[in-house]
């Protein structure tokens, strides 16, 4: 009996064991590998994978100007050049409405350090890839040194002193204190100098070269020169920019059409953010600069989030160099109430007795608004205001859409020429083809630069137009600045004139009484203006104005500590209609806004960090 039980038990165990064995025979059943990612141990083993890591380092650099937040496309919106449409959030330090917890500080700290991490990773590890030739590795490492230097450059301008990490940070070791601003400058100089010393890195790629668009020595010279400008080491700065003039760069003859996808491979661009019309890889500048008549795939048009400020637009001189002053055209203009001035910008034909309802309503609308209709010239209003925009520095019309100028839209298949008129009574697909905006309730200057015309791009919201960061014109102006600061004003004039000579009809310096350079200070003023007129819209001016310490004077006003009502500030100060009324004004909360706050959360995480004063 007992034996029988034992036997039965044995048999049942056998059955269980067999069934277990049937299913559990596969010993590595629990070892799985992903097929859409690459293990860290494998990534340096083949050429293609290592190359993709280098591309990853570049990607983050492009991402600076792309990606998560359209409001951040252009640092010019932090300056007097333009303002952010009030419907959107962003640039809160410039608008005087944030504390150290502001997400923008967080965001920029994070994205610059990601760039630093990715480039350091290549610099420290690419030599592990034996499948890649030594010369290509050396070139890629030099490229990444430049990209890292670029990230540190941006960080140092924003914070003036950040922690220096030159290797990929290990988890838990992100506790370094801030280095001094000077130590960071030296780190940037070192990376740039290393890149310049690398024999495998060319000075320049031909526009036909498959590597066109990658980092070159010229980039490193440019950046190093900029740092020397910060350090007021004018001599070294001049020699770096001078070096660039020997490398075969030349100004693209057609200023306006340089900023087109078709011409983005040119000999003027030294370094640029590159975009394509592939899904998710386009530039957002078309979106923020473009208007509702700009072609987009969704049919709704672009958003004109960035509104050019009349303070800046009006700074463009006449083509012969004579300063522009609205009071000369309309005597008493600046003394008038801004709403009353609007009369000068109105379209022809408004009439309380007009047959057309639209013209009748438009007249009433402007009466209600407060325009001084006694100054209205029903048949000559447009011609009168157009004179304001005639015979000016031609770059003004190439960069901006001004009243009663036209823009070739793409919102309908016929790609009509739309005219910027006020009040708007138009239609996309019928005369009079008024230009439609996202801010149709008010009248603003609009961007032309980087805005696709007709249907030249696949989708205006994500356009394929590259954005230059370094172009030869900028190098020439910087060279002029470095020379002028050394007292070599006459030599500086030569380089500014190279830039001006490219623009048909624009008077060269020292060519007449208006362009007469009267000394180093006068030349300094002219150089700074030239930077703005030439480079506006390209996100360059914030960094330069900080260096000159003119940023707050221009953005808010020189009287910022004297007045309590922001409406009284004498700078560009807010989102402004062409005749001067403001949608909003900026608040002045203290000069500490010249530096970014160290992100509040980062201070709490890393007690070794210190905050910038005032935040």
């Amino acid at each position, binding site marked *: 009996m007992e034996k029988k039980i034992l036997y*039965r038990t044995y048999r*049942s165990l056998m059955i*269980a064991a067999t*069934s277990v064995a049937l*299913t*559990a025979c596969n010993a590595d*059943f*629990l070892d*799985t590998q*992903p097929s*859409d*990612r*690459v293990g*860290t141990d494998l990534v340096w083993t083949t050429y293609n994978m290592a190359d*993709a*890591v280098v591309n*990853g380092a570049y*990607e983050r650099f492009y991402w600076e100007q792309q990606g998560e937040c359209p409001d951040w496309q252009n640092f010019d919106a932090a300056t007097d050049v333009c303002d952010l449409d009030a419907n959107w959030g962003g640039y809160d330090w410039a608008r*005087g409405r*944030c*504390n150290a917890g502001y997400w923008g500080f967080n965001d920029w*700290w*994070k994205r610059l*350090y*990601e760039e630093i991490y*990715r480039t350091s990773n290549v610099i420290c590890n690419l030599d592990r890839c034996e499948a890649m030739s030594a010369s290509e590795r050396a070139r890629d490492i030099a490229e990444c040194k430049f990209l890292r230097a670029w990230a540190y450059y941006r960080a140092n301008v924003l914070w003036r002193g950040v*922690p220096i990490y030159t290797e990929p940070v290990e988890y838990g070791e992100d506790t370094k204190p801030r280095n001094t601003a000077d130590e960071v400058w030296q780190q940037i100089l070192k990376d740039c100098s290393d890149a310049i010393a690398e024999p495998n890195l060319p000075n320049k790629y031909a526009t036909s070269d498959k*590597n*066109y*668009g990658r980092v070159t020595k010229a980039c490193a010279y440019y950046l190093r020169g900029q740092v020397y400008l910060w350090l007021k080491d004018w001599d070294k700065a001049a020699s770096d920019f001078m070096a660039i003039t020997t490398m075969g760069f030349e100004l693209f003859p057609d200023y306006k059409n340089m900023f087109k996808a078709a011409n983005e491979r040119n000999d003027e661009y030294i370094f640029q953010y*590159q975009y*394509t019309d*592939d899904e998710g*890889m386009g530039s957002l500048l078309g979106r923020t600069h473009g208007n509702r008549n700009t072609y987009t*795939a969704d*049919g709704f048009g672009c958003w004109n989030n960035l509104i050019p400020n009349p303070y800046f637009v009006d700074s463009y001189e006449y083509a012969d160099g004579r300063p522009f002053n609205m009071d000369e055209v309309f005597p008493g203009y600046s003394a008038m109430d801004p709403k009353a001035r609007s009369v000068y910008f109105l379209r022809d034909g408004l009439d309380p007795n007009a047959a057309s309802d639209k013209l009748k*309503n438009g007249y*009433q*609308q402007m009466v*209600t*608004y407060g325009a001084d209709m006694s100054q209205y010239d029903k048949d000559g209003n447009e011609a009168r205001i157009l004179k304001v925009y005639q015979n000016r520095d031609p770059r003004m019309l190439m960069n901006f859409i001004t009243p009663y100028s036209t823009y070739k839209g793409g919102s309908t298949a016929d790609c009509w020429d739309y005219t910027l008129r006020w*009040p708007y009574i*138009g239609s996309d*697909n019928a005369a009079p083809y*008024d230009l*439609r905006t*996202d*801010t*149709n309730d008010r009248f603003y200057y609009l961007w032309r630069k980087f805005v696709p015309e007709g249907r030249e791009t*696949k989708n205006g919201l994500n356009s394929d137009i590259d954005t230059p960061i370094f172009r030869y014109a900028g190098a020439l102006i910087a060279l002029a600045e470095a020379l002028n600061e050394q007292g070599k004003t006459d030599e500086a004039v030569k380089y500014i004139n190279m830039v001006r000579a490219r623009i048909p009809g624009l008077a060269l310096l020292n060519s007449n009484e208006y362009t007469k350079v009267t000394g180093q200070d006068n030349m300094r003023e002219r150089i700074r203006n030239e930077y703005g007129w030439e480079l506006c819209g390209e996100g360059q001016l914030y960094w330069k104005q900080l260096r000159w310490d003119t940023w707050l004077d221009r953005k808010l006003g020189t009287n910022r500590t004297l007045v309590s009502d922001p409406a009284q500030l004498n700078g560009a100060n807010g989102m402004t209609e062409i005749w001067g*009324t403001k*949608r*909003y004004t900026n*608040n002045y*909360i203290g000069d500490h806004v010249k530096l970014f706050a160290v992100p*509040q959360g980062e*201070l*709490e*995480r*890393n007690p070794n960090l210190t905050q910038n004063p005032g935040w």
Partner: protein
Amino acid sequence: MEKRFIASLAGAALLMVASPTQAERKLAMSVHPNAVSATQQQRAVSGKVVDDQGEPLIGVTVKEQGTKNAAVTDMDGRFTLSLSKSDAQLTFTYIGYIDVTSRAADNMVITMKEDRNELNEIVVVGYGTQKKVNLTGSVVSVDMAKETNSRPVTTVAQALQGMAAGLDILQGSGKPGAENFSVNIRGVGTMNDASPLVLVDGMEMSLSDVNPMDIESISVLKDAASCAIYGNRGANGVILVTTKSGTDGKVSVSYTGRLSVNKPSKLVRFMSNYADYMELVNEASENIGTAGKYPQTVIDQWRQAEANPNGISESGYPNYVAYPNTDWYDEIYQTKVMQEHAISLSGKDTRTRYNLGLTYLDNPGMIVRSGEQKYSVNLKLISDVTDWLQMGAQVWGTHSDRDRNNVDALSSWEFLKTVPGIYPYYDGKFGGIETSVEDGAAHNPMLLLNGDGDSYYKTTHAYTTAFAQIKFLKDFTFKSTFGYDYYNARHKYTDGQNESYSFSRGEVVSSPAALEALSSYMYYHHYYNWKVTNTLNWNHTFAQKHDVAALVGFEEGKNSDGNTDVKKMGMIDATITDLNTLTSEEYIRGNFTGYTYRSWFGRLNYAYDSKYLVEANFRYDGSSRFSPDNRWGFFPSASAGWRISEENFAKNSFLSVFDNLKLRASYGKLGNSSVDNYAYQSWYETGYTTMAGKKSPRFYLKNLPNMNVTWETTKTFNIGLDFTTLNGRLSGVFDYYDKQTSGILYRPTIGLIFGDKVAPLQNLAGVSNRGFEATFRWEDKIGDVTYGVAVNGSFNKNRVTDYKGAFISGWGADPNNPDPNVYYSNLGEVSSGGTQRLVEGHMMNEFYVYPIYNGTGTYYDANGVVDPNGGPRDGMIRTPEDLKWAQDMVAAGYSFEPQHAVTPNAIWYGEYIYADTNGDKVYGGSHDQKFMGESNVPKFTFGFQVHAEWKGIDFSMNWGGATGFSTYWREIGQNSSNVVFGLSIPQWIADDHYFYDPNNPNDPRTNITSKNPRMSLENPSMSDALDNTFHLYSCDYLKLRNLTIGYTLPKNISRKFYAENLRVYFSGENLLTITSFPGLDPEMRSGEGYATMRQLSFGLNVTF
């Protein structure tokens, strides 16, 4: 139903062995009662067993006491039994019914009553079933067949709401097929997936994938003892779903059908009068010192047209079209009729039981192109091949067709971006903005909903299981089950041309998109999972009093998941949308992922005399998600029960009032691995970037590695008491639990120095959930009225016990710098999150927001010096005195952030200011947020159900609610006073908001008492700039989830329709919500989205 099923199974089995022969029956029938002599040694007795409705009971065991004589009732409830002595006592037993003992008599009619104290109820537990009285774990079972028979529920989660203590279910949306229920058992114990494991007939599924009509019963396993057998995913509790099976010998066909009228339960409407809207936007502009946006001429145009809506405008369209005043919610939401039809066929043929269920559901939702049509089939077959071999298989599948439009944007900016001055649709055209002063980006929501081309979601989900079960050596059962689960989703999205038209101006507002810009994309997603389970059971009773059961098992499986995503552009015509016909490729994407697991598990039960109950479980789990060295987890549990009511001392004391009184206790450990499939590995993400002007591959490091990650574990202690008293009329269950989760797999917030990288996954955090649950049930009958009341409630306290160290803040609190003038906070280091934070000592994701200032309203102290505590009482600047105080405060060195300036476009009349909680003279500074003691998970949830039946009329109600939770809600167009050009304004804010013009205090719009801030064209304004207590809403609610009235026709009438049973009913779902939350539905914990439905339905249940 469950108990009936078991009973009929047992009965059927006995019928086979003990059914009387025809001859015996004839003999018994032929004997006249009076002719039976008392001296006869043997005699036969016959009779009939019925239930209290007079219906025959099939399969009742009839036994002569003290002998082995037994019989089973047949299809008509009849039995015949040969007796060994003349005055025999017969006992009648039937599972689910109270035993009856009666003296034998001829033609006896025995009425058996249903056992309402449910002592004999059978409950499905892990890998088996158990009698409820013998349970030592914490398990609740819900009779779903009853719920789904009367309610227009389309998902199981909806039917389960409020039905079980400790089960917290909140509905996230009203969108058909995407209701987004959150299901938690006993609080949220982890930052990872905290939803319970759902097993449908042993196969892992999502609750939303199960057709409610197929379900027989649901068991909710709550404590470690009952879940430990599912160690690897049991930490969040387990929901076991059992589908319907074939029942008794007769083929039974039943039909259930219903029609429901769907309406939104609540809407937060936009302003619908355009002239009013324009005036209000102008008010918002003037409030902040800028010029109004809309010219009076345009406002007047609308006013004039409104006075003569049917007049013909200059463009030739009627005024109401050309100068529209559209109430968008009237257009978006429509009353629609949902219908559902289910047929089930079940029965048993000698050795084989079968069940076939077919269900068709057409739920159109309430919004155009947002509905779902669903087809479900369930086929189950179980065959007793021999007396030792049982085999079976089940095929279960569902196919869902959903139309697709932009309705998910209902809660987004895109949808809010509309104004009342757009006409929805007229004369074949969608309206656009009617005046050029309007924001060109203002949409027509009806165009967003209708404008897309051919677009849909289609999913097909099928699973099959097959099993074989062998009984051997009397006490052993071996069962092997194989399950395969296949899911396939096919999504299509096609752009539309989206032309909009201005009726007043007679022209196109936005032109149709060019054909070359139109795209179409297809997304394919599929997963396929298989699982093998082998179990060996052994049951034995020693010496009649020692019941021992043991189970050992093995399980392994693999889950695989992949998708393909393809997009092309350029159409020949907007109606030709197949990928073949499009001209340019946009992208082709796809990826694949999967994981494997393997487990051994076991259970041992011991019961002494049904009085002392002990159970032990273990599970040993391996997961591919962890590295080989950290892969295996061991999860044991033990539990014990003491049926006090079975003790002699209890039977002889006051405790005898209890029919059942049981004390239970359990303790055990469970695991969770619901993290990324390749959690421990470090990898580079792949993708593309632009390089040298071309799209090129790029890699970047995202996840920092941690080889040491392993299982997170949850240890639960549970003590409970079950009782039944007053002859089974009152029963109750109490449970106290203490659930400690440790080693929670988490990626903490990482320093910004690491850029986009995420922190290594770590076994980092600990969370504690402690709580109390109670359930009471009263069932009784008064005269012809049967009625019952059930109440359940649960309280849960959630705390983060372990994260990254204690939160320290305060003046001089810096451990390295005792300077009392320096304010220190380590919040960024020890916590993560923003408005909802994770930090030790607080509940998970507790709200952390800026309190609104509140002051005494006295402004200055006795010396006339400005008093920081003397500001406005509720924090809003309402009067000139308030404003002067604010200005004086600024002059005295205080500052109000983040708007900073006391000017019309910053801090001004009708704006709230924030409190300075840390006393640094900065109001709304970096350290002024406070923990609010609430998260968006309820602390207290409760439900109560009432039912009554009287002569075929039945009535039931289901109430449920939750308290102690909040949501942060601030949305333009919904509950904010901030105005953005081209965006809608909520009507209720338009009707009630602060207004004061210091230059014209007598303005008729003046309202200085409103709680809502002034209208402001700033986004955000001062009041909305920081996440603050004003926008933190309590979500406490009480809902009448369902009310049903039904009538079952008397049998004699229903039989005229050849029906065994015929019931009609009326049912209302989501009829009443009591809450202070101003948004759509407190359960959604969001103010906007697809509104939940109120349904009125009429239905029919027929069984043939």
